[in-house]
């Protein structure tokens, strides 16, 4: 009887899955129970926010150590998020998370642009351009990231002039070892009105683009829809800006005794991390771009040539759109790497998520829950990047399938 049931392939398959799931569950339980027992021995709990008293683990966020005062300061914050030393550990954690997100987003943007430029340059027929690109890739791909970070921080940004001898860019911006000070722009009373004009400008620009594209499709004459659209946008937004009497208030920095007063200061720690991450990742992206372009059959280039497209049109209209489908999956990996590598920030004193987590572990002594939180946070960031990239990928495939 048992043998008959087991000989059914479907039953067997489900059985194996069930056994496997059970083994994983038991393994996980033993692991957690063991950690719990060890931690209880020294008076700690594995998840202080999960009460183990009672029959079922109830979530008890109120008794959470994360609500305690953090006491340490984080001077580098992102997206205008406010944090002070009297805030809670959880707020410190969010500050770190936002710092990681900020450096990752900007890093990904720079790495992509730089990577595409270098990747295309490596295929250039210009000897100098292609050699410089090769040198770039081989240098930055083969030196460990943490070494590069220390290089950018210690050997480049810390070598900037002292604050008293700040490099002065027309009295608007200043550069010194204390950072790059830039004017900060605030909207004044007329800003809301101007924003309405900008919205109108965007709509008009869209319409211009649509009309010009249609004309181009109908007549076959290039009518430069993007140039037209940008022109319309700039004209309306610029004119209304001037008519409203420039409704922006510029807060210019001034050189102080210790730091810049007013404006906004980009700290060398952030810049060093950003440079290190983008330049390192760009060297990998360059290779992905180069490989993907080489994967497009030569006939495509020749066909585009036969149609009379010039070099940049060939690349922009024929090669890159096809290469995109090959580029995106490995590119996603690089984006994930960049985000995860940002956890090396501690080497250059940037307060990222991992750094804040490590300090919290040290001050609050709760290693297990914080490491779990850190893992969950990085996992969420990674899955978000993957989801966005997969969305772009499927849209791209859908578009190429439609054509």
């Amino acid at each position, binding site marked *: 009887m048992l043998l008959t049931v087991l000989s059914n392939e479907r039953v067997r398959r489900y059985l*194996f899955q069930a056994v496997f799931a059970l083994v994983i569950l038991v393994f996980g339980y033993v692991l957690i129970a063991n950690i719990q027992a060890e931690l209880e021995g020294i008076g700690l709990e594995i998840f202080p926010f999960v009460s183990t008293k009672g029959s079922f683990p109830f979530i008890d966020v109120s008794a959470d150590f994360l609500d305690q005062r953090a006491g340490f300061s984080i001077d580098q914050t992102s997206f205008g998020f406010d944090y002070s030393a009297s805030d809670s550990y959880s707020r410190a954690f969010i500050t770190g998370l936002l710092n990681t997100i900020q450096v990752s987003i900007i890093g990904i943007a720079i790495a992509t642009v730089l990577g595409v430029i270098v990747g295309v340059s490596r295929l250039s027929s210009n000897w100098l351009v292609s050699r410089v690109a090769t040198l770039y890739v081989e240098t930055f791909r083969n030196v460990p990231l943490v070494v590069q970070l220390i290089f950018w921080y210690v050997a480049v940004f810390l070598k900037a002039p002292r604050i008293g001898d700040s490099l002065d860019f027309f009295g608007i911006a200043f550069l010194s070892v204390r950072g790059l000070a830039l004017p900060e722009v605030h909207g004044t009373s007329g800003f809301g009105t101007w924003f309405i004009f900008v919205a109108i400008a965007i709509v008009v620009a869209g319409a211009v683009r649509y009309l010009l594209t249609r004309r181009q499709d109908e007549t076959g004459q290039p009518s430069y829809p993007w140039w037209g659209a940008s022109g319309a946008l700039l004209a309306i937004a610029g004119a209304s800006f001037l008519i409203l009497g420039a409704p922006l208030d510029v807060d210019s920095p001034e050189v102080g005794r210790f730091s810049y007063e007013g404006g906004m200061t980009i700290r060398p720690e952030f810049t060093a991390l950003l440079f290190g991450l983008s330049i390192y990742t760009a060297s990998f992206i360059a290779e992905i771009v180069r490989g993907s372009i080489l994967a497009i059959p030569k006939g495509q280039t020749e066909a585009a040539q036969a149609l009379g497209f010039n070099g940049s049109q060939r690349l922009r209209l024929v090669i890159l759109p096809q290469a995109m489908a090959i580029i995106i999956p490995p590119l996603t990996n690089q984006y994930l790497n960049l985000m995860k590598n940002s956890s090396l920030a501690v080497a250059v004193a940037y307060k990222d998520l991992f750094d804040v987590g490590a300090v919290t572990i040290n001050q609050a002594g709760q290693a297990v829950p914080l490491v779990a939180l850190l893992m969950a946070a990085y996992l969420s960031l990674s899955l978000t990047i993957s989801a966005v990239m997969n969305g772009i990928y499927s849209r791209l495939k859908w578009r190429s399938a439609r054509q």
Partner: protein
Amino acid sequence: MTLKRSVAILPLLLVALAVIVFAACGDDDDGDATDSPTPGDGTAAPTDTDAPSGSHSQILQDVIDRGSLNCGVNNAVPGFGNLLPDGSFAGFDIDYCKAVAAAVLGDSEAVDYTPLSASARLTAVQTGQVDVLIRNTTWTTGRDADSGLTFATTTFYDGQGMMVRAADGFTSVDDLAAATICSLEGTTTELNLTDRLPDAELVTYDSNDTLQTAFIEERCDGWTSDKSQLAGRRSEFPADSGGPEALVVLGETFSKEPLGPVTIDNDAQWSDIVNWVVIGTIAAEELGVTSSNVAAMAADPPSVSVARLLGVGFGGEAVTDTGLDVDVTFMQDVIAQVGNYGEIYETNVTPIGIVRAGTLNALWTDGGMIYSPPFK
């Protein structure tokens, strides 16, 4: 067909793998189970029901079996815990690692040093990566009560200070109210500075060496740390940046930093051993026992206190067993191989320019705080 079959085999392989892993873990559990009746109190149990011949302390047993002590230390604070160019460690804290090894194993060189960053050190004790942490660690309520750690008797009464460049002309900590300050991260220093100078901008580093580079490049105006560390770093400040004279440690001390060895909370016996090694070095100084006269004093103890400290009989009195589970003569090894408190201080701390007389670290008989509970 072949593809389908191989797909069906995959979970089977995974199950087999999981069973192997699980079985391996199960073996460990069995090992514990002989000690503990229920798996829930696995850690407390081994100390309750151990073989009578063995020690009561699991860590002590591990150290003896291993033949060496795992000591968590600093590697970048001259005078306290410093890695020398020849690869050896030296300093005040290092000598206390040696003292514990001498007491437990009879050999002060049987130490494996683990350099730890400020932010990784406590976790290293909690997870058992090191048997004892002797790395200028401040005794605080949070660390003692909340983090599952135990602090031994304070070896060095420190306080937080501020070091500035002499050329900048700062004379008090208040001059730096809006300045940029560099500090190590994950330290009580970081918290104290925020309390003392709430408006200062703080840049925190994970290594003293990067911090020093940043300070030389004037990334920050002040360098805050325990005064002992500042004195140590100042004494070795590179000559091409002006040497020690280019730096000034401001007079104000704005925190209490009692530094001492740290052990895990669940092994009271082990904590006692570490604690009494520290106390023993202080008692030895009080009683005038030094590394050069310890052998003579053990042979012919001048007083009953000395005899008890060194674990020898006095005037027909039987040798008192300390109950620490180490050799009764353990302090002989410690003093002979490492020295008493005063000797350890003289060798390590005096050279970096911290005078002992008149500070909290003088003996209580000289107006300081260094005091030994009775050794009996």
